């Protein structure tokens, strides 16, 4: 019987280490996967948001009567209609659900409407009369840092200041190089726009929300507080998520949608258009960074000095955490004993900024890698040599005093990247599509120069500063089928397939059923900070191990074998010291083994007044080498190749991992040469895909990637998070390559054509 079962068993769907197929890929290629924007209910109404047209203004009056009079409009809500906490926020709840007396950025919500058609909603929004009394807009973060500037919020204009002092503040060396760098405002620009469907409970005192988010439980906490509801009455189910990259960590339309639902007792669907999406979610912090490096004659770093000014926009979001990430990574993946670093996250009347892939480290890395090239030039070293000479190793300390006890193969990342062959030079008479500017035919091959540049980075994994971002998972094992339940947001990164791979590996099953992702199980924390493979992977692994232990106990009892001798071999339970071999399907026939596990990472601490403390959990490293072609006269850039070797701990799914590396590189490329929200007096000039440019298939470089596999002992599966590192040091690598091609001293990203050729 057991043999028959084994013969009939389907081919294994892929265990850890395989390029297993994603369970969501089939529905996605057929258009049958349900994204949050695809949710639909009979009798539903549409919701829409009225937003401020001023960067800073007093609200004198809001008159919604004309909107209410429109046929098809069900309700209009303003600040007066928020029953609970009037504000929300991830760290500080300072962002109003609806602005009441004052608006602090263009796009701040003032009211929401529910109506029978999106077009009716639009007419209703136009009919709401808001009387503003404009106030001076504070849009320069450096002015916000000035104590003499009037506060634009009761909590002041400095969202956070933190300093780091380590070693001798007067230490110096024969080489001193400095620069001031600027990073523009990047948008996550996920394709699947914000969308949610709220369904009221029959008694009208609770609701179910289908929403695309990164963190269901945190959303629930904030929504329930604003609605003055017991969190149990706010149930969230993850709607299909069309990308996130940090932009779905904060609340956008969740509270508005829930309020409209409770008020109308009707299902409410809300979805943003692209322009509203730009206004409705947080962005990457624009930054100004001054750095001065002191080094020995041979290029060995002595001291880093830095000042960071991050523009947090009107509300706090995660600015304080982004700031700490930025300044604690100021040294890069290099040893440096002495440090004098200050950072400010500032409140302005610009759009709020928060999480985006890389979370503060992107900004720091552009500055420190630009500086490393200056050190190299001053020491007469090439960019690889200066980095190898200073490369951090396990056991070295950060400028916070924290010992880097993670596996730290910085040197290996650099060396393996350097081994990747450079691309062939442009052949004479190259196809115009291979030249900068592509089919625009602007480039002249004789005026195209090639450049090579380097970037190396360190990135913390998981949350920092004492935050316990644990994750919970449950498993049921029965009849050879494992059913997993967790609240981990699948945003495209591939956690679903990883969870299946873990269960197949640990439990010896082929079929792994995934329960809907919702708040019926404990929090998984956010899908951010490169943390889900480690945290939720660890939770699934832990839950499966518990179930397996129970299975072994049962099998051991039946066969009179000490369970400690039992193991999983393929899809069988085997006795490692005997001959017993029972298929898992048979051993779990007509009975169920369960496991639930809450996975915590080791505790972290706060930083003291001098920025000293073990505030981070673990670190990952990566090296990038970029090759670009630049048209010298027009300043057009084509990124030809990006070579990379990334410290991943262990590869759990090679295809998925490669996809993360390539995707991150494209986003870093975007920041390097094209992506920027352009603001004028706090107003976005380009909130559309015509003018906010994302890399296309003709902008994508050849990516040659190598995984550096040195399993991380602290990580449950030996694997480090891999989501963020790919997009961090590729940006400075590309800019360094443009500098190498042109000789220009480029200090801001994105690099614009006029920066290169004028």
């Amino acid at each position, binding site marked *: 019987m057991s043999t028959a079962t084994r013969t009939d068993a389907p081919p294994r769907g892929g265990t850890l280490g395989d390029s297993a*197929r994603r369970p969501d890929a089939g529905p996605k*290629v057929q258009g049958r996967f*349900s994204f949050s924007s695809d949710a639909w209910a009979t009798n539903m109404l549409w919701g829409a948001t009225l937003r401020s047209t001023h960067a800073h203004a007093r609200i004198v009056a809001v008159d919604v009567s004309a909107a209410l009079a429109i046929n098809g409009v069900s309700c209009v809500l303003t600040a007066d209609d928020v029953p609970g906490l009037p504000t929300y926020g991830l760290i500080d709840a300072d962002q109003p659900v609806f602005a009441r007396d004052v608006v602090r950025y263009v796009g701040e919500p003032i009211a929401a409407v529910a109506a029978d058609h999106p077009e009716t909603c639009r007419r209703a929004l136009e009919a709401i009369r808001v009387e503003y009394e404009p106030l001076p807009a504070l849009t320069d973060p450096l002015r916000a840092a000035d104590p003499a500037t009037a506060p634009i919020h009761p909590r002041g204009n400095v969202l956070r200041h933190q300093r780091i002092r380590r070693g001798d503040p007067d230490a110096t060396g024969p080489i001193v190089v400095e620069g001031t760098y600027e990073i523009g405002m990047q948008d996550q620009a996920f394709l*699947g726009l914000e969308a949610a469907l709220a369904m009221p409970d029959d008694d009208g005192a609770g609701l179910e929300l289908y929403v695309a988010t990164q963190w269901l439980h945190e959303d629930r906490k904030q929504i329930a507080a604003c609605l003055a509801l017991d969190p149990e009455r706010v149930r969230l189910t993850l709607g299909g998520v069309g990308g996130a990259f940090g932009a779905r960590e904060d609340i956008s339309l969740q509270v508005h949608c829930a309020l409209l639902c409770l008020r109308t007792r009707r299902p409410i669907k809300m979805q943003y258009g692209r322009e509203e999406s730009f206004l409705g979610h947080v962005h990457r912090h624009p930054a100004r960074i001054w750095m001065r490096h002191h080094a020995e004659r041979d290029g060995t770093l002595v001291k880093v000095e830095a000042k960071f000014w991050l523009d947090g926009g009107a509300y706090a979001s995660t600015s304080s955490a982004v700031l700490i990430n930025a300044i604690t990574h100021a040294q890069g993946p290099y040893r440096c004993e002495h440090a004098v670093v200050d950072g400010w996250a500032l409140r302005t009347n610009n759009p709020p900024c928060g999480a985006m892939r890389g979370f503060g480290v992107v900004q720091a890395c552009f500055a420190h890698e630009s500086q490393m090239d200056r050190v190299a030039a001053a020491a007469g070293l090439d960019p690889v040599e200066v980095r190898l000479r200073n490369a951090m190793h396990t056991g070295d300390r950060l400028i916070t005093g924290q010992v880097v006890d993670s596996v730290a193969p910085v040197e290996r990342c650099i060396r393996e990247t350097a081994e990747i062959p450079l691309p062939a030079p442009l052949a004479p008479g190259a196809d115009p599509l291979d030249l900068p500017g592509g089919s625009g035919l602007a480039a002249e091959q004789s005026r195209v120069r090639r450049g090579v540049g380097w970037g190396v980075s360190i990135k913390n994994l998981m949350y920092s500063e004492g935050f316990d971002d644990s994750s919970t998972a449950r498993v049921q094992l029965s009849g050879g089928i494992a059913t997993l339940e967790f609240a981990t947001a699948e945003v*495209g990164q591939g956690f679903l397939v990883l969870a299946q791979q873990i269960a197949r590996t640990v439990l010896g099953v082929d079929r792994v059923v995934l329960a809907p992702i919702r708040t019926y199980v404990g929090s998984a924390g956010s899908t951010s900070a490169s943390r889900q493979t480690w945290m939720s992977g660890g939770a699934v692994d832990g839950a499966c191990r518990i179930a397996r232990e129970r299975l072994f106990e049962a099998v051991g009892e039946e066969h009179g074998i000490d369970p400690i001798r039992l193991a999983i071999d393929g899809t069988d339970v085997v006795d490692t010291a005997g001959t017993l071999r029972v298929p898992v399907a048979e051993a779990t026939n007509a009975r169920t083994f369960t496991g639930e596990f809450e996975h915590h990472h080791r505790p972290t601490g706060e930083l003291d007044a001098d920025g000293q403390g073990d505030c981070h959990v673990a670190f990952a490293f990566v090296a990038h080498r970029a090759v670009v072609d630049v048209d010298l006269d027009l300043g057009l850039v084509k990124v030809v190749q990006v070579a990379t070797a990334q410290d991943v701990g262990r590869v759990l799914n090679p295809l998925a991992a490669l996809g993360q590396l390539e995707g991150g590189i*494209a986003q870093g490329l975007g920041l390097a040469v094209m992506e920027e929200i352009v603001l004028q007096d706090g107003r976005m000039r380009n909130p559309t895909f015509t003018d906010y440019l994302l890399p*296309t298939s003709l902008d*994508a470089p050849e990516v040659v990637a190598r995984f550096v596999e040195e399993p991380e002992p602290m990580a449950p599966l030996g694997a480090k998070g891999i989501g963020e590192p790919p997009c961090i040091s590729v940006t400075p690598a590309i800019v360094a390559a443009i500098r190498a091609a042109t000789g220009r001293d480029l200090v801001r990203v994105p690099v614009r054509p006029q920066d290169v050729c004028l």
Partner: protein
Amino acid sequence: MSYTLRINGEDRVVQDATISESLLFVLRERLGLPGTKGACEQGECGSCTVVMDGEAVCSCLVLAAGAIGADVRTIEAVSPAGEYNAVQEAFIAEGGVQCGFCTPGLVVAVQHLLDRTPDPSDLEIKEAISGNICRCTGYGRVFAAVRAARDARRAGAT
């Protein structure tokens, strides 16, 4: 207003529509065909690609009521549920899918490319999908998928 559109070989009646609705809106919100996605509303992302009278176009820029008489094919008509054609199979096998929001538009665009140009070069592939923005993959696995689909079709798959 009410009118009839020819969608995936069937006449579909659109009832009580407003005048300026796009084909994308009508497909998704009125005809129960949400497979076609929208991400920019202005023809700059390709997520809403459908084939109309034999040409791949952005359905967000097609006035639905102006599409009377046109033959419209959407992602839903590419293959029956649970069955994948060569393009779809390649996107799954080669890792061309992450969040998947761009995927239906890409599948339609690639299918259209290979129907018209069975043996495209790498540059032809890149140019043909240059209007389909993907934010997740960086296109590497997408290119791999298109090449695999091209090769599979040449070898006789559908």
